[in-house]
């Protein structure tokens, strides 16, 4: 229970970086949707949960892992589009609080439905990848893969957003919604594409998470609040802010957890979050208050 700059501290720092990859991926998805559609998907972590179950059943039905993974990504991408069309679209012009409540409602519906359909027992794919040991440090391969895949996905998304017509339109719409028709851009189509990408990112997160975590209906509560905190800390809608905030928070959790206890890691992270909210309510990289 003491903190020294020894090899275990380094291990904690590196594990923090590995955790940050996954959190940054999820924060990116949420920020992307918020920036474009201007609605926060409170139920984002529950979409990940649906994806995890989808992968679980596809894998156990005999599909190879990569096929099950692809199925999971497509499933959640589709879920994102359905969520947008059925739930978000009717409240696009409503007050923000109504939008939050509606997506919050979806959160509980998905959790309850998952409990009824899948049961409350913990499910696991049973894939064990082992750990990489360097000196006295240990890093699970599942975390290393998660970090690598999440980083690659973020890089691809960045290329898409900076090079393709649709990607540039996605960034443009987040900056000036009203004039998009003058560019010949149908915002409804961009909303659907963005919802599919946001869903797909949640699906990819599900793929990575089934390698590390057991699946149960309430798993979203484990990391959902954390992702929101990261997005708000970075500045809601700021993709770079969310990316940096993911690393900050992950390090608080990892180092705090290593020096004290895991629970303390979360407590310190949230404390830091609250202090930033007092000092900079718009978030570290948020443009408007």
């Amino acid at each position: 229970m003491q903190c020294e700059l020894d090899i275990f501290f380094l291990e904690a720092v590196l594990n923090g970086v590995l955790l940050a990859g996954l959190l940054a991926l999820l924060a990116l998805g949420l920020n992307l949707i918020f920036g474009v559609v201007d609605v926060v998907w409170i139920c984002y972590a529950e979409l990940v949960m649906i994806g995890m179950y989808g992968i679980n059943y596809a894998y156990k039905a005999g599909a190879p892992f990569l096929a099950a993974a692809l199925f999971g990504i497509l499933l959640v991408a589709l879920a994102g589009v359905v969520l947008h069309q059925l739930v978000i679209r009717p409240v696009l012009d409503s007050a923000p609080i109504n939008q939050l409540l509606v997506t919050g409602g979806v959160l509980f519906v998905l959790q309850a439905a998952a409990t009824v359909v899948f049961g409350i027992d913990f499910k696991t794919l049973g894939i064990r990848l082992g750990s990489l040991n360097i000196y006295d440090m240990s890093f699970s391969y599942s975390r290393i893969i998660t970090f690598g895949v999440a980083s690659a996905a973020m890089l691809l998304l960045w290329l898409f957003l900076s090079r393709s017509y649709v990607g540039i339109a996605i960034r443009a719409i987040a900056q000036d919604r009203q004039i998009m028709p003058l560019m010949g851009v149908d915002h409804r189509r961009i909303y659907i594409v963005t919802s599919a990408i946001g869903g797909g990112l949640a699906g990819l997160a599900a793929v990575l998470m089934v390698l590390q975590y057991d699946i149960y209906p309430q798993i979203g509560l484990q990391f959902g609040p954390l992702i929101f905190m990261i997005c708000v800390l970075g500045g809601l809608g700021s993709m770079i802010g969310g990316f940096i905030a993911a690393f900050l928070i992950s390090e608080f959790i990892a180092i705090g957890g290593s020096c004290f206890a895991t629970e303390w890691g979360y407590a310190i992270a949230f404390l830091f979050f609250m202090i930033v909210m007092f000092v900079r309510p718009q978030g570290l990289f948020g443009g408007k208050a």
Partner: protein
Amino acid sequence: MLELAGVNAGYSGFQALFGISMSVKAGEAVAVIGANGAGKTTLLRVISGLLPASDGAMTMNGVSLRETAPHKIIETGIAHVPEARRLFPLLSVENNLKIGAYIPAARAKFTDRLNFVYELFPRLKERRAQLAGTLSGGEQQMCAIGRALMSGPKLVLFDEPSMGLAPVIVAQVFELVRRIRSEGYTVLIVEQNVRQVLKFADRFYLLEAGHIKTSGSAEQMLASDEIRKAYMGL
């Protein structure tokens, strides 16, 4: 090219345009002048579909604009340089131009048109990688015009291009509009700066409180005492 007949439009509980009938022929430069709040911006917003007309007919080369979805109007050959430029400040100059070529027909000609815009405005080429929000007012206007040209329009709508710019820059901006015109584009401009517009427009419509009060050639407008007094201070 562009025909309006009896067009009414407004915002909730407030009518801004009353029975507007006007036309723009291919190759012309037409100006709509009028005081603040006369409905000039509204008129352009109605033509480009940002605001639906409540009554009347609008056609672009025979295509009914009222039956065309707002984001499809650009495909009829109308490009709109909006009031206050409205660039995407966090996109680079080049990406602002690229989004101007979003429609399928324009994407195929992206490289040619980009080179054309860069020839027209070499300053934009120098600043292609810079964020549009960091450009000076005059450069932003070049970028906004360039963005409109990227769709390959036949008719370019200008909404008060001189607004919010320093007097020295204003003259340059009107020079830009003149050059667009001389490149063969048809121009419909709304402007309060009547003096500058008089220098290049072929025909005028005077808009007052949502009605077209009078119309005519530059000479006819100059001959009108009313206009000279009200809009030029002569």
